[in-house]
């Protein structure tokens, strides 16, 4: 019996764990602020943002098995949509609460548009085509400043409206119970709530008729077709759902940063998000979250190597920036060699080891 199942059968322990995690998540930015530094709160914000993106990509790659190397395109579309409709660039200032669902909707359509031509492709070929799409979007954004200036080209869009609800701007410091909630703290709670929503949606989808259809397509597309699954629609649905998460992430990113340019949406960004999904355990939500946390926190934590070297040897032998990427790359290679299914492989494989367990009750049924 796994620890998780034990928890399920012990509701009191489960509630205690739940409350503990909730309290921890609630005070985490203040812990990071006091124990480490303000910049760590910002890192936490980014971790949460990447959780939204990675879980979106997880639907496409992890659930449906469609290797998408151009995922950042949806992130870019969401970010630019928000930036163009809430900045002095066009002089349009739509409210935040309207832009977020709109971003999800528009990127959904982009997901279908980019997904449709790739339906017959699989594996390597799909990866190449989606990679191309990702680049096309970025190059468009880079060049759509002439003859009509839409995206402002490589200079990017500046002075984007911060996320705000009514008069409550997340960019200002607010005081509550005598505690200062600065911009990064405010965004932490916004990203946390949306991140939790995305986790919730992913979990519900995974354990549903649609989720099973996605996995069936991933496992064997021909058999899935023969079982009556309309693979075209179910793949487009995966692209659309994944893209909409990316779009929401993009909108949040634009509001948080206040400035975006095509440089933020390069291929390496797609690859980083893919690494997060694969490293943690493709198709497993907890694994993806772990992958994100590691890949966001690890490179930042490795910055401390510099002072450490200084203290140990009196001078810096290896530039921490170089060493950081070296250790990072090595860690990725080791994980993939020793845990090819990811740090937290999906539950089916774990369940296999608990094979002797009988089925839960409510089995007495007839055909």
């Amino acid at each position, binding site marked *: 019996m796994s620890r998780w199942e034990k928890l399920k059968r012990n509701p009191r322990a489960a509630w205690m764990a739940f409350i503990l995690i909730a309290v921890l998540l609630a005070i985490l930015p203040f812990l990071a602020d006091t124990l480490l530094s303000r910049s760590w709160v910002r890192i936490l914000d980014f971790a949460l943002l990447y959780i939204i993106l990675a879980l979106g990509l997880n639907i496409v790659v992890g659930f449906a098995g469609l290797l998408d190397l151009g995922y950042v395109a949806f992130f870019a579309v969401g970010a630019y949509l928000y930036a163009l409709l809430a900045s002095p660039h066009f002089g349009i200032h739509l409210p935040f609460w309207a832009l977020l669902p709109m971003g999800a909707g528009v990127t959904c359509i982009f997901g279908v548009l980019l997904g449709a031509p790739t339906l017959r492709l699989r594996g390597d070929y799909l990866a190449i085509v989606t990679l191309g799409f990702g680049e096309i979007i970025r190059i468009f954004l880079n060049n759509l400043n002439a003859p009509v200036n839409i995206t402002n080209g490589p200079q990017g869009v500046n002075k984007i409206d911060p996320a705000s609800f009514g008069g409550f701007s997340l960019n200002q410091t607010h005081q509550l119970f005598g505690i200062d909630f600065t911009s990064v703290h405010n965004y932490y709670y916004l990203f946390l709530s949306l991140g939790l929503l995305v986790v919730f949606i992913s979990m519900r989808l995974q354990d549903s008729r*649609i989720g099973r*259809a996605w996995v069936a397509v991933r496992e064997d597309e021909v058999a899935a*077709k023969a079982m009556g699954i309309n693979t075209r629609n179910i793949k487009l649905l995966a692209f659309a759902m994944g893209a909409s998460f990316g779009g929401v992430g993009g909108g949040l990113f634009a509001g948080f940063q206040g400035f975006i340019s095509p440089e933020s949406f390069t291929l390496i960004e797609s690859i980083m998000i893919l690494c997060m999904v694969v490293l943690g355990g493709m198709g497993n939500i907890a694994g993806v979250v772990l992958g994100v946390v590691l890949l966001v926190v690890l490179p930042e934590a490795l910055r401390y190597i510099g002072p450490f070297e200084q203290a140990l040897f009196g001078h810096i032998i290896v530039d921490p920036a170089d060493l950081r990427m070296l250790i990072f790359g090595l860690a990725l290679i080791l994980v993939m060699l020793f845990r090819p299914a990811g740090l937290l492989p999906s539950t089916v494989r774990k369940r*296999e080891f*608990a094979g002797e367990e009988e089925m839960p009750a409510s089995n007495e049924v007839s055909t």
Partner: protein
Amino acid sequence: MTLLEARQVTKRFGGLLALDEVSLSLQNGEIYGLIGPNGAGKTTLFNVLTGLYSPDHGEFFFDGEKLPSTKPHAVAERGIARTFQNIRLFGNMSALENVMVGRHVRTRAGVIGAVLRDARTREEEDGIYSRAFALLQYVGIAEYANNLSSHLSYGDQRRLEIARALATEPKLLALDEPAAGMNATETAGLKKLLEIIRGDGVTILLIEHDVKLVMGLCDRVAVLDYGRKIAEGAPQQVQRDPAVIEAYLGGVLA
């Protein structure tokens, strides 16, 4: 009553004529065997029937209506389910989940239902679960419900494929060499299972090399050779057909 009718179905792969104007008809409730030497076109016929390939010529009528030729999911929805010669299970899903996927075509919950998990969706999900489990019991592998399908024994994988196909509530079950790789005991068990399935009102189209199984089980048999139907009739009658003997053994004393 005729359930399935193939009319002059032709399929070419480049210069190879895989199916040459094959016509046959299946009656409701019968077990119809399809035999022939390797490469005779049996599996091709299955693939054309289930919409995985489109025929170059000819068509299928099922339950009085024309079958769509390039939409496998629509064929499944109309009531034709199949198994595969080289077992095609969803390897990283449990046995139970494999059968639950088979319920897809008879259920309708979408994204919104999945996320909100309203009363109707929960009820449907419970139905999928209990039906899938009942089907595992039906084919006799309920004890492995939570095992990965790729970890089942060969014979059990074949049974699981049948359970998954039955989950789509087919009128016609098309089995591609279900006894391949089974020992005598397993084959006897399979025969019993197929008889039960037929008893429950499902028509069966069977590709099989095990002559004993075909002779003991099928009501009628068609023989394919080089893409043409060379004989059709009761098993014993077909067995004595000179054209069939020639196809299997080569031109005798030629």
